[in-house]
Structures are given as structure tokens and as C-alpha cells.
């Protein structure tokens, strides 16, 4: 079954790449550039997975994560960042209920396998 994914990243080339990578994995993808737009989209329709950049203009990724989990607790949220591995951010994201963490510094193959792994684990939980 195809996953419906919302990509939240303010850098268009990054969002577009995620779009193409995920479409190749048979996902239905929508992308937005801010946390505010993400919340608007999530209010309007249900997504299976949200790929959420931590560094966003306006409300931060962490805040957006909190709101998304309040709005639609069943949505699987995976955090993405260009900062690489960060204990504090991971701890905070987990506290707010994210399913996993993807660094843009990982090889593409690892990013996609992590995405599949987190999505599957979240689905199994439900």
C-alpha cells in the first residue's frame, strides 16, 4: 500500500529530491516549505508519514513536531536535518514523539532504508 508522505523542507532542491526519491518508492508525496504550511496541510488531509526538517523558517521543526502530534497523533513523523547526529535534538524529538531521525549527511541508500525502517516500525506499532 502506497504511503502518503508530506515533505517539510524550506530548501526546494532538497524537497524536490525527497519527492523524487519517495515517488520512486511508490509513495504519494506532497511538499511544503514551512512548519505553518505543514500544519495547514495536515489539518486538511491525513498523511501516513511526515518528513520534517528541524531547521525551518518560522516555527521550528521541533515545535511543528509537537503540534502535528497534538493534531494527528497517529501520523508517523521522521525528523531530517543537515546537522548530522545530535544527542540533544534526538532526545527532544523522541520526547515529542518522532518515529526516527534522518541526517542529510547519511548516504542516500541509508536515508531511504532508514525511512522504510522507521515507517514500518511505526506501522507495526499501530
Amino acid at each position, binding site marked *: 500500500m502506497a504511503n502518503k508522505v508530506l515533505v517539510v523542507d524550506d*530548501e526546494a*532542491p*532538497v524537497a524536490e*529530491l525527497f519527492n*523524487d*526519491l519517495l515517488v*520512486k518508492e511508490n509513495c504519494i508525496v506532497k511538499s511544503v516549505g514551512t512548519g505553518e504550511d505543514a500544519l495547514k496541510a495536515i489539518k486538511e488531509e491525513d498523511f501516513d508519514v511526515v518528513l520534517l526538517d528541524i*531547521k525551518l523558517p518560522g516555527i521550528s521543526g521541533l515545535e511543528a513536531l509537537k503540534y502535528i502530534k497534538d493534531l494527528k497523533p497517529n501520523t508517523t513523523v521522521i525528523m531530517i*536535518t*543537515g*546537522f*548530522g*547526529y*545530535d*544527542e*540533544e535534538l534526538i532526545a527532544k524529538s523522541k520526547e515529542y514523539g518522532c518515529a526516527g531521525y534522518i*541526517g*542529510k*549527511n547519511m*548516504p*542516500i*541508500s541509508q536515508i531511504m532504508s532508514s525511512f522504510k525502517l522507521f515507517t514500518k516500525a511505526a506501522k507495526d506499532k499501530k
Partner: protein
Amino acid sequence: MSKQRQIKENFIASIIDSADSIMVYIDSAGLVILSNKKIEEMIGSSRSEILGKHWFDVFSQKFDKPMKYQMLKAMIDDSMKYRRPNNFQSAMLDCQGSEHFISWNITPIFNESKNLDGVFLLGNDVTLFKEREASFKNIDDTLKNIFSSIKEYALYAINLDGNITYYGMGSEFLFGWPKDKIIFKPVSVLHNYDDVAYKLPFILEQTRKHGQYELETFLIKKDGQSFPVILTVSQLLDTGGNLTGFIFMAKDMTERKKMEYQIFQSEKLAAVGQLVAGIAHEINNPVFVISGRAQLLLSKKPLSKSLKSDLQAINNQADRIRKLVDRFLSFTRKMPPKPELLDINKVINNVLPFLVYHKLPEYSHHVKIKKSFDKKLPHILGDQHQLQEVFINLFINAYQAMHKGGFLTIKTEKLDDQFIGICISDTGSGISEQNMKNIFMPFFTTKRAGTGLGLSICYNIIKGHNGTIDIESELGKGTVFTIKLPFVKKERKNGK
């Protein structure tokens, strides 16, 4: 008695009465013949009560404190017996019981046949002067106390031959030399020899020219250790204004320099960290897009051979940048652990020289390192850089807790069939119970220049290695950190 004489005597009497000094005339038997208003007011008696009585009774009648007048009595007796004047100071009580300091002037008076007729007592109240003098003495004492409590200052002087003529206020503490070992020694004992040969003549010349000269330099302690000071040199002049030597005031800058060094270090690290994290983010995004796009294209079929190899080159080089950024990120502690088989003894040995010789040069003299390594310590699976960081943090803490010197003991051993233990203990200042509660909290620090991240990072790293870190400490005795890490069993190692 002629009228004229009467007028004259009255005039003299009025002068005597208006004088602000005590005036008393006593005969050779000690009886009071003449007194003036000042003494009458002071002892609170009328003239009629005084005249004809023995002076001693008159003075001590209100307050029975004859001891107060022993000095006066001795001096009056002396003047009568040896027929000589006496000048001295002694205390007396007024009718209110307040003590006054009187400067006495006792003059023997002789009759026409040159026999002693009596003595004239002239007394000036100098209480105010005494009090002022006392307050000056107080200021002197206070200044001395202030100077002796400011330990980082030393005051010493040399004569024109370059020999130490004064060695006071804080000098013993700062230099470690006792006064009697240093006085009249050449000043080269306190300054280093090169300075005395090359720098000091210049300094003294500048001081001569400008009256005072200030510079940052180094002085030498008794144990040979040099320490940074701000040195202020002034001319020492005699009352005629001739140069007789030079006064040196040295302010110990050791602590200040240490602090500046620490602040510099932490600021540098923070700045590097921020820079690297910022760059990493900016680079990771485009590199991610480049390699992602290359890989997407690579998956499209059909693909000509040359296009494929071009795309692979793009992908490989993008990957290279990605790895490079990853290595930079290891500085900012934001890297996932890269586990490898490690000998903890080696990891510690690699850290130590770096620490002692590059990171903490000003501490390295005082602290002795004792190593007790288990030579058969089993290997662990861990990230070398992260564990190095743990040890650097713990060693720096230990060194900083022992700024007066001490022992850093590092012990490694196999604890049981699962864990190895690394024990790092210092003999430093220790940690209070209150601070122990927050010791691993991020941003908790007791250091002025601390970031409060060191131990929280250690904690996270050890936790990430499935180990534990524990702390025991006693104020004034020292601190012990015990790290437990799971080791790799032989079978697994062989199976790898």
C-alpha cells in the same frame, strides 16, 4: 601693697586664669599655693578647696586612682630633689572621669637664697593630638593588614648596587623566600638572569626618566618556577630628592593568565563548534541533493556507459565531501559513534601527552600522574575519538581541581566477565554534595570559564557505549570517576 602692684597682680592673675593650660604652683612641701581656672574646671573643685592642700590629694580626690598620678609624682619629686625641669606626658582624669593626655612641663623655682621654693606645673591638654596619632596608627595597621591579605602583591626595593634592601608585604608569600635569606642579596635572585642583564637596565633607565615604569614580565620563585606579573617600578628618593634605589611592586598574574587561557580555550572551542556545525549544515544540504540526483539518474535505464561512469564520479566525489564534513563534525560532538576494537590503555596513553604538553602547560608542573594499567585488559568496541574526549574532559577536570598540585591516578582493570573498569582519581578540591546532584547536567558548571558541557558529554558518550560512569567525591580530599565499559569476548573477536 601699692595700688599699682595690686593692679599688676590682678592683671597677672587674669592672664593665668584665661590661659588654656593647667597652671599650678606647689611649695617644697607639695602644698598648692596657686592654681588657675583650667585645673579647677578640670578637677571640678573651687580655688578655696584646692589651695593649701597637697597636690596629690587635689588631683586624685574625685576618683580614687592614685596610680594615674604616680608618674607625675615621680617627676615632681625628681624636679624638687635634683632641682631640674622635667618634660613628659601622662594621663589624668577630669571630674567626669574622662581621661586626658597632658603634656607636663615642671619647672623648679628658687627663692632669693637659692633654695628650692617650689615647682611650677604647666600642663597642656594634648588628648586630641593623641587621638589623631592613634588614628594614624590605626590607618597604618589597617594598611598593613590590607597589604598582607592581598597575597598576589609583593613589594620590594633595591639600592643602586642592585641589592635587595626592602622585602615586605606579600613578598615572602609570592616568592617563597624568607626575608632573612633575601635581604642584601642581588635582585637577580628574584628576576631571571637574562632580565637582570638585558631588561633591567632599560627598566631602571625608564624609571629614572619618567619616575615610574610599568611592564608585564616574569619573576622567579624560590623553587625556580617563573610566574607572570605586572611590575611597577618607582624611584626611591631620600629626603634631599637624591635617587637611592628603586621600589618594585609586583602583581601576580598567574591566576588571571590561567583564567584568560581557559576562557580563550572555551571560546575558541565554542566558536569552532559553531562554525563547523554551520558549515556542515550548509554543505550537507547541497551535497545531499547532488548525490541523491546522481543516484536517481544512475537508476534510470538505459544508461550509456560513459554517462554511467560520469554519474558515478559525481556520486563518489559528493560522497567524499560528505565524509569530509562528517570528520569535521567529530569536533562538534555531533557524530554517531564509529565503533572499532580498542585497547583503552592505548587510548589513554594517546591522550596524556597531548593533554599535559599542549592543553594545560601551566598545570603540568604540579600534578604527578600515576598509571596502573592492566596489561591483559580485554579490548572494547568503541569510538576512539569520543572516548578520547571523555578522558580529556576528565583529566582536565582533575588537573583543574589540583591547581596546588597533587596526584592523578589512572587505573584500568578487568572487573568481571562483562566489564572493564577505568578509574580516574585526583587529590584535588573535591565536589560538594550540592554540586554532585547536578554534576552530569548540561550547562551546569562551577568554573568561571566553564561551558558546563564536559561531563554531560562524557555521560552521553559512555551511555552510548553501553557503559556507566560514576562519581565519588569528598570536599578537600579529591574525586574519583569510575567508568565501566563492556568488553568484547574473545570468541566474538575471533569470529569477526
